[in-house]
Each structure stands twice: as structure tokens, then as C-alpha cells.
């Protein structure tokens, strides 16, 4: 029995692209859902930095850390330009 290679390969095209897209669409949906759940129930603690800032008892060491962080971010900003 002669198999028409082109027809067969077109079938592969349909099967393959739909599977890849199905997989990735599912991945996108799940990732969006996952991000929502994680942000709602396990929010990252960003407040720490603000608390440190507002308190008057900022130690010398803490000050140095802040200065170092600013310097590092400036440096990376300059490098990225």
C-alpha cells in the first residue's frame, strides 16, 4: 500500500501544533492561576524594608547596608545603559 507522505506529514503538522499549543495554553492558564493563588495566600514580605526605614533606631550597620544597596543599584543601572 502506497502511503502519501505529504498527506501523512500534514496530519503530523495538525497533531503536533495542536498538542504544543494545548500544552502551552494549559501552562499559561495554570501559571496565571498559580500566580493569583500564591500572591493572595503567600504574599512576599516587602514591608520589612519600609519598617527599617521609618524606625528611628536605625543602626550604623543598617545605614551602611542601605548605602551599599543604593550604590549597587546605581552601578547596575549604569552598566545596563
Amino acid at each position: 500500500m502506497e502511503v502519501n507522505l505529504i498527506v501523512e506529514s500534514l496530519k503530523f503538522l495538525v497533531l503536533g501544533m495542536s498538542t504544543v499549543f494545548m500544552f502551552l495554553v494549559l501552562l499559561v492558564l495554570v501559571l496565571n492561576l498559580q500566580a493569583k493563588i500564591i500572591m493572595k495566600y503567600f504574599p512576599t514580605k516587602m514591608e520589612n524594608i519600609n519598617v527599617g526605614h521609618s524606625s528611628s533606631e536605625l543602626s550604623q550597620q543598617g545605614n551602611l547596608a542601605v548605602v551599599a544597596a543604593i550604590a549597587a543599584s546605581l552601578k547596575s543601572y549604569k552598566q545596563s545603559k
Partner: protein
Amino acid sequence: MKKVIIYLLMLVSLSFMTTSLYASDVAKENLNQDYKSKSVPELFGSLYESTGLNAIINPTEGLVSHGTVVSVFNQSGGRIMMMAICFVLFYLAIAKGFEPLLLIPIAFGGFLANIPLADIAGPDGFLGILFNMGVSTGLFPIIIFMGVGAMTDFGPLLANPKTALLGGAAQFGIFGTIVGAAALSQYTGVIDFSLKEAAAIGIIGGADGPTSIFVASKLAPDLLGAIAVAAYSYMALVPIIQPPIMKALTTKEERKIKMEQLREVSKLEKIVFPLTVMVICILILPDATPLIGALTFGNFVKESGMAKRLSDTMENSLINIVTIFLGLSVGSKLAAEKFLVPETLGILVLGLIAFSMGTAGGVIMAKVMNKFSTHKINPLIGSAGVSAVPMAARVSNKEGMKEDPSNMLLMHAMGPNVAGVIGSAVAAGVLLSIFK
């Protein structure tokens, strides 16, 4: 009592020694019987017969190497041609900097495989042993995937998941090329690919070396050398192949689109991500789990942050060791009798088409998505959907900067880029499941 036992033992061992000495005497006599006295010119004559020079100048009819009969041309001119090709690959790797980590071992493996008489790429040569150990079994590509997983940061994909679709569209190159390969063998008499071989060639369009080798070793082991060389050389040529296609398919305004800043991704999201991918893969396509499983394992170890030694090993020493072995054993398929066939030319042409179609697929998909979405996507990042991490993303970034120097697309392009790795692994799984 003890003394008696020790004496007995010594006696027994002595008797063994004498018998073995006696046996070696007999062997010597046998050897001398085989050896016939030769004159000095005869000795030089037989030495000449075992030189590589003689093997190249006077090829023997019907010589069997690597299990196939090697034609007279492939023993002489073919070998020299292949060595020349290996030297071109050395040049590209060293002087031009094209994927030197891979091309140097591959080209040297090819160089070794073409040495006459030594049969290094044969089943008993060290290249053959490496090949049988890691490539025919599909082991090396899997270990490389672990390292890739441990190196890759999926953060950009997590921050903007819909860019994963671009990585899907770029896989059009794979399946489009299968159609092309089938059409080529249907309408031309010279090149005749079976459907399995067409599928193995198409996977070059995924722009993913390990995946290509994994699929080719399962579907078309004979074409492995040409497929691996095509895949890696086109990956190295991404900065040359992609930009003209990207420019032709986009307008100046589209290339200037600025995308919004990516959000912060929490550590927990990154840890959960490999497991999520794994679950989806298990449910939809278990055939892709060897590749995806290794990738997610590497990534999970990295993101867990608790096994730094393991992730360090995977992304450095382990991947380097396996890259050496993989390169050499792929190179062993550059032996003249395997490589100098019309199919190779077909594979090189089809591989280029596969790459171009993948690039176009990603760019067009980005334009389609812009029609339906309010958050605009710069179509230049679509081309990064072919996996070639991180080269393709860098190309997107560079092209974007050409239009607007303040437009940083690199992190945005990493999203489709890493999704492309997953996408081509899924495509590989589909192809393997078809021919099961």
C-alpha cells in the same frame, strides 16, 4: 595447626606459580612458530602497509568499517574531504566564535573518526563506545537538559506567561519542515526520506541541540551526524539567519513597541513552576517526560536553593563533561561513509528552512496576539520562541535597540525563549509518540 595450614597454602600457591610459568613458556613457543623470519626490506614493506598513507593511497575493495562496506572513494578522497570539513569547523569555532564549546569537540571527533585503519568510531573504538553508551541510548541529551534546567531562570516566563504562546508558534518550523522533507522525497528521486527520517530532520527547527539528538537517535540513527551538525551550526548562525526575517515581517512602528516592566516573581512561584510543568506533562504527554523531567529536575534543584552543591555541579561540571562526550560521539558520525551522502545536503537545506519557518512563526504569532490584546507585545521577541537559549533572545534585544536604543527587550524575550525549550521538548514527545 595454624602453621600446617600456612605451609599447605604456600605449597598450593607455589604449584600454581610453576604451572603458570610453564604455560607462558608454551605460549612463547607458539608465538615463535607463528613468526617467520623477515628480511629488513620486508619489515619496512609490512610497516608501510600499515601506515595511514598507504590506506589513503591504496584503498582496499570491500573494506567493512562501522558495520558497513566503505566505498573506495570514501576511504581515500572522502576521508580527506571530511577532514577538511572538520578544519573548516575548527576555523568557524575558533576564529569566528560560533558555538566553540560544541563545534570543537564535534569537529575533533570527526577528525578522529576519519583516521584510516584505527577505526576509532567503530564499536570497539573509544568514540564508538561513547556513542553507544550515551547517544544511542539517549542518555547524554537528557543529562544536558538537567544542566540547562539548572542554568535557566524561568522568572521572565512566570512574570508574563502568555509569551509562552510565542514559544509554541515557533515550533511551526519543526512540523512545517516535516512536510517539506516529505514533499522532497515524494517529488525528487535523488533524496528519499522515510517519514521517521523526515520527523527527525524537522526537529532541527526546534533550534535545540540536545532535543534534536535525542529524537534523531530514536528515529533516524543513521542521519544523526548530519542532523546534529546542522542543528548546532544553525544555532550558531542564529544572529545571521534571524534578523532579515524579523525585519521583513515587521513594520518600524511595531519594532518600536515598548513593553511594560515585568513584575516581581516570588521565590515560591519559581519553586512550584517545575512541578506544575511536570504535572501538565504527565497528564498530556508522558512521551516528553524524559526531556521535560530532566529539565524540571535541574530547575527544581536550583530554585529550591537548598542543594546548591548539586545545582552547581549540574550547571557546570556535569554539563561540561557530558558536552565533551556528546560532542565527540556526534563527531564520530562525521566519518566519510556516513556523511558524504546526498541526504546530508538535503538535511542542511531543510534545516535552514526549518529555522526560518520557526522564526517567522514566532514573529507572526506575536502580531496576531497584538490584534486581540491590550498589552502590546513587541513582535521582535517572537523570534526568540525558537529555543537557542539565550542567543535568540539576545538577537531580539539587539534588533529592538537598533530601532530605539532605550528599548530593552532582553528579559521580555527570555520568556518565549525558555518556553521554546519546553515547546520543542513537547514537539519531540509528539513525534516520538507517533512512531511508537
